[in-house]
């Protein structure tokens, strides 16, 4: 079993080597910040991502409900499916596909908070997840 944990990061690196993204976290953060006219803040992003929200679905009061307190580790959806690590340091594929980022912000902000996230919030969240 131990061996799997040693091999897993190597497989993930291999997977990411051939992955063709169309953007970078820096570009996305800059874009959302420009749209919002704010300075991105990893601290505000952390507060949003790890805090409890109301107004969304009762099953998912926080981003951490599925992504878990260990953002460098694997999360699980309510249906039991694995979610790759959110922390950019643990998962270099994160935030390199603008369509995916847009899709999951749209879906998950509504599920957790009951509304779409603002451009300022998106810049903060990406700044936080890219910093850890």
């Amino acid at each position, binding site marked *: 079993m131990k061996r799997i944990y040693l091999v897993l990061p190597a497989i993930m690196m291999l997977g990411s080597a051939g992955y063709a993204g169309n953007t970078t976290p820096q570009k996305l953060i800059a874009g959302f910040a420009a749209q919002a006219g704010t300075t991105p803040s990893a601290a505000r992003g952390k507060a949003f991502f790890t805090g409890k929200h109301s107004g969304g679905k009762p099953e*998912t009061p926080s981003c951490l409900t599925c992504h878990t307190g260990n953002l460098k580790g694997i999360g699980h959806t309510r*249906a*039991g*499916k694995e979610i790759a690590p959110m922390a950019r340091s643990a998962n270099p594929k994160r935030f390199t596909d603008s369509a995916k980022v847009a899709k999951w912000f749209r*879906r998950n902000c*509504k599920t957790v908070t009951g509304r779409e996230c603002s451009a300022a919030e998106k810049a903060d969240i990406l700044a936080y997840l890219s910093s850890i």
Partner: protein
Amino acid sequence: MRGISENRKTIPVWDGFVRLFHWGLVACIATAAVTGFLLGPYWIPVHVVGATLALGLILLRIIWGFSGGTYARFSSFVMGPFQVFGHFRDMLAGRESRYIGHNPLGGVMVLALLAVVIVLALSGAAVLGASAKAGPLAFALPYKESGWLREIHEALATGLLLLIALHIGGVVFESRRHRENLARAMVTGEKEHREGDVISAPRAGQLPQAIRKGAMWSGLVVVLIAGLSFLPVPRSPVADYNPLVAEECSACHMLYHPSLLPAKDWERITATLEDHYGEDASLDAESTAEIRDWLMANAAETADTRAANVFQLNPAEGVKSLTDTAFWRARHRGLSDAIFNSKAVRARSNCVACHEDAESGWFNPFEIEIP
């Protein structure tokens, strides 16, 4: 000890194979009965293995019935109706002969037990084929035939229990009547020889011939079962997923095969992705349409698996998901919350945690592995 054996002469009656067959069959039938009557779907493979071994034993016993020694031969205990009736009449009058092998009524019981187990096993293969789409008859029987086949299988199983009760009753009756232990004789193979016993003319068993026939028939049966099991099953669930469906529908949960639900359910589910089982799963209109069309084109109406026949949702009546259906609940009764909440399963909706072939739509009982 010496004194006893001098006074009571014993002779070999049941040879090694007959005894092995008898107790082997007891073990197989007990396994099939416990798993079939008392345990759930998870035990179907054990049930099927027990029944198949029983059938194999009977095949060899039939061969030995024509090639074996004196009392193993059918000719020593299969008698005509007049002899059977005559023995029964004598028994009622308390003046029947003591047969050292099977008496005429015992012979009838042996044939009845063998016949019922054979038909029981064949009807079981039919149920497995029609309802679970597994085994040698999966290619031949549509799901809609599984109801009456199952009733026949269950009636035969109950009938076999009654026959076994009668058989044990007969053994107890005969043992008391002749002051001997017939069950022990089936272990040691020896019976006490008394004056006036009905004995058969000794015949040597033809072991090489029996082995040759046994190998040939076993081989034929194995090839037949394996061959039939590999025949294509009509109206199989679609084998390959549309790539967009595979990508999008597996983002948050296992891939639910389109054959699990009728087209009208897929139509509603894909029209309400904004509130998809408590999550926003919305997609752009073009992707949603492609996914909807493919799911509806390969829905339950196109397949004949059990899953394709038993599931349909009814949100108005509170049946919102597969796990809300009466069928799902009945099939998973007895499984504890601890299993569903375990780290390996995590959710009732995560079929693939235990049904290794869940994403193919087949749900073969042989593919169940509870982690």
